[in-house]
């Protein structure tokens, strides 16, 4: 039996693979790519840093999250559960992602309410949930315009945590790459006092498509409204 942290993922994976065979054979390559360890590694990195900064010593207290450009989300469901999320809103441009995610997230659907919308978070931002959102996750900032365009001080509840990742990797679809962590930070609207974690890591998972040597950048932030009040 396949498990992640004792969660049985057998049925989700088998059902999804069957669905890919029957209904989405043209998307198999994309789906297989989403199962590669380099995708998992992005979430592990985020999880480690979140735990370091929130769960130990502070509880994260996040129930609802927006996830942008989630793509196929087989691995990420595990982390949402681990982080204590109860409601996850997924936003992806690609409409074919929805039925596949519904299947591959079966293993967490008993614990997490999942809502999916096929839209462009930059252009359709009026349709993106903001009320009671505790967390905004974008592991694919390289696929869209700068986050500072839609995420600014005051656009989300004051305790919302933001987890953004980007890369310097040149590849098809990466339209917003950054050479350095400083450059990546400039694509966000976070000030020095807002940033909880900023870091980069060298990634190299060999010759598999998109997984060769490159850098990934991550910023975890929460707007510091207390300093504003002190001014």
């Amino acid at each position: 039996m396949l498990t992640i942290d004792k969660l049985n993922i057998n049925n989700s994976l088998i059902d999804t693979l069957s669905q890919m065979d029957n209904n989405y054979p043209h998307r198999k390559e994309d789906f297989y790519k989403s199962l590669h360890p380099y995708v998992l590694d992005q979430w592990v990195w985020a999880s480690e840093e979140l735990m370091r900064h929130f769960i130990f010593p502070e509880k994260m207290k996040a129930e609802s999250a927006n996830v942008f450009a989630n793509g196929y989300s087989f691995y990420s469901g595990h982390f949402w559960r681990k982080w204590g999320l109860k409601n996850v809103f997924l936003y992806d441009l690609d409409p074919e992602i929805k039925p596949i995610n519904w299947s591959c997230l079966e293993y967490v659907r008993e614990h997490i309410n999942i809502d999916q919308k096929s839209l462009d978070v930059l252009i359709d931002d009026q349709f993106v949930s903001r009320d009671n959102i505790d967390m905004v996750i974008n592991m694919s900032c390289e696929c869209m315009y700068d986050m500072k365009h839609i995420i600014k001080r005051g656009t989300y509840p004051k305790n919302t945590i933001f987890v953004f990742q980007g890369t310097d990797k040149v590849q098809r679809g990466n339209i917003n790459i950054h050479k350095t962590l400083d450059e990546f930070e400039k694509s966000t609207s976070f000030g020095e006092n807002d940033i909880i974690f900023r870091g980069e890591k060298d990634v190299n998972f060999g010759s598999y498509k998109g997984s060769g040597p490159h850098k990934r950048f991550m910023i975890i932030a929460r707007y510091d409204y207390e300093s504003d009040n002190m001014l």
Partner: protein
Amino acid sequence: MANKIVYMRWGENYTEDHVYKLEEQVNKNCSVDYEFCTMESCHVGSAFKRMDELQTRFYRGGMNPESSITEREDADFVREDAGGFAHFRKYLMFMRDKEEFKEDDVILYLDLDTLITGDLAYFFDLDMEKPWITRSWQFQEGFKWKRLYHLRSCPYFNSSVMVWKVGQNMTIFNELTNPDHDEAIFFQYGINDNWLFHRFGPNAYDESRRSWFNFFEPEVVVSDKRFLTSKTLIHTLAGMSMIEKNRLCLQ
């Protein structure tokens, strides 16, 4: 009501010879009354200036931002990934038409790289409840348009041939020039038709814009020569290099 056959020319790739050759083809292939004209006002004004500035600011390639193909095989970016929204001028027609034409005029727009092979009267006898656009039927093969949807590539819209009534596509112009989003649009989209397809195609999130256009029948307007038949009225050369296009258009 008058029938307008509109072309647009800009940049250095297309010359007066292309206009002359297109007009010659139109004259030979239209059995109803029409006026062959252009819309010069699409190259001036504040909306044009704003779009031109956004194209310059956000184009990340090393070639002409108005080119819609990846000209170098070894380029780091394919054209679609390089931003800059090539051919934005076409959508200015949707705003300028009210100034240039009468309320009940019907407009047939043709790219200059168009081969006309049948009677254009067909386009002035359509049900105009919705505007019309060419569909790139070849992208249906292997569901290519679905596979590349998230990469903002392979739209099944091809704006090389469009038919609309005056004012009918103003919503498209308004969407493109919305100051809240125009930067994101010009940053994210390399080519106009990918944006049009996402915002006004069958998957548009906003229901009021979904499936905005009707399509010409598959054989009527063809952009892939494998689909050419005796019913074909227009063969568009979208996707070819200028050398290939000129060989066909200027002969």
